[in-house]
């Protein structure tokens, strides 16, 4: 009996830990198990905000992270994803000093297109676009030391891409 009670308590705490939002009421019986949770809040819940995970930096390299979900009070902005550094090293925007950059803001890119270089221990590692889209911003200056996963470009994905 005592053990059951302990299990029930632990159950309640586990449940609550597992919930992202605390309920208004929680009921847990045990003899053939009932669990009841209620989050209702008197009035009708507001329209839920669009589900959008916020980025944790450094983002997973090579994977785009959504960084700017549309604001609610400001006029809708373009949604961009970031292209992250595939290696720690020095970031170059151009193939050699003085040469024009691989890409400029406003350029459209296609998957696999070289958009920059990372030099790590004399190795030149290409930075490649991972989707079709348009370069909205270059986030690091030429010659900047970057870490793995650090955002390099903001890209507006092409819906069709």
């Amino acid at each position, binding site marked *: 009996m005592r053990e059951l009670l302990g299990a029930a308590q632990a159950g309640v705490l586990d449940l609550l*830990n597992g919930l992202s939002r605390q309920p208004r009421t929680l009921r847990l019986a045990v003899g053939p198990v009932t669990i009841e949770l209620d989050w209702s809040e008197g009035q009708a819940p507001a329209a839920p905000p669009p589900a959008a995970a916020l980025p*944790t930096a*450094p983002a*997973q*390299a090579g994977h785009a992270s959504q960084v700017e979900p549309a604001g609610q009070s400001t006029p809708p902005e373009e949604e961009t994803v970031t292209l992250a550094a595939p*290696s*720690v*090293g020095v970031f170059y925007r151009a193939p050699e000093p003085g040469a024009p950059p691989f890409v400029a803001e406003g350029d459209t890119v296609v998957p696999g297109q070289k958009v920059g270089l990372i030099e*790590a*221990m004399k*190795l030149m590692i290409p930075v490649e676009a991972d989707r079709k889209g348009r370069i909205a911003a270059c986030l690091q200056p030429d010659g900047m*030391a970057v*870490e*793995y*996963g*650090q955002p390099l470009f903001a890209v507006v994905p092409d819906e069709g891409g």
Partner: protein
Amino acid sequence: MSGVFGTVLIANRGEIALRIARACRELGVKVAVVYSTEDAGTEVVRYADRAVCIGPGAAKHSYLNIPAVLEAARMVGADAVHPGYGFLSENADFAELCAAEGLTFIGPPPHVIEALGDKSSCRSLMAGAGLPMLPGTLESVETSAEAQEAAEAIGWPLVVKAVAGGGGRGIGVSRTPDDLPSVYRETRRHASALFGDGRVYLERYLSPARHVEIQVLADAYGNVVHLGERDCSVQRRHQKLVEETPAPALSRDLLDDMAAHAVQGAKAAGYVGAGTFEFLVDAAGGFAFMEVNCRIQVEHPVTELVTGIDLVQEQIRIAAGHPLRLRQEDVVPRGVAIECRVNAEDAARDFAPTPGRLEEFAVPAGPFVRVDTHACAGGSVSAFYDSLLAKVSVWAPDRGAALARMRRALGEVRIAGPGVRTTTAFLESVLASPGFRAGRYDTGLVERLRQEDPR
């Protein structure tokens, strides 16, 4: 602390990264660490003065990624790199590349790592230095027929070992002439896969035996001292679970002799830094050299507890070119120290790792207890890396008091999370076993305990 480094880059993770960071702090050295995306939330990343993300979770792309580590060292302006244990710690190429980049590798010179890492050259070197060896082949054995011939000279049981192996990996046991061909083939195959080097050699198999190792410190000027032994016989499949010093139930004469041989070996190899000479001791009290570990060991705290010497600080000083401050007579071990490795593993499921989120994480404290851990409540055990959660070490004036203290300490461990299991209860059963309590145990202890209590 004049004359050590401005910034040390720690090329490791987990408890040892934090351990090294603490040593650096105490020496007044700036701390930089590399980390993988998987480790972004860990304590050492917060603790360090600089932290550089060098890759994703898989070690191959981060902690084993030599260009990334060297690039990070350049980025933070490091003077030296501490490799910890595992990962790049015994990689001669990495040590060499550090030197080429003007970085001090905190460890032995590349050629020493190379000579001692290759079991074949290591055995030749140590045999030449007068260390007692098990009967075996000094050179690698290239064919099954050659193996058969060598085996007949050595006698059974025997062990087939990868020349490039170490740390308990790349080992096969042949018990009869019949199983030799398959064991030989299997071990070669494993060695190839694990180390990219299929060469193997043969050696008399001593088991059960005691696994006893000698800690040495050597400076760049040929001075070598030893810091006594650690008994690491409590092992499961060659992985250490409990370590203690002094080695119980072995004579001081035997241990002194072993230590003298280790010092001799270190001198012969031109060793520099902190190193460990592993030996096997048979039931009759004979001992034989096994291998050298060219790095700080996981179990170094027990030596620190009885000697009062901070091994990681000594490593750093030696690497900075300081002569040893210690003479052999300054090393006066006192009392007894025991370490238990609390791993995130399920003893009931053959010690399978149990990664997951840590909802509760409380470790022991109080008098004469030391805990080395990187974990914390709210953190998690990553499936990418080893399952070590915490090293719980105790000191006491005598072994009985040390055992009582360790029981007390393990009783304070509270670790919980969905799916997470720990070896705490298993460690308690080891401590409670008559063999361990009496100090009369060997590498067969864990298997015997598991057969008694298969859970």
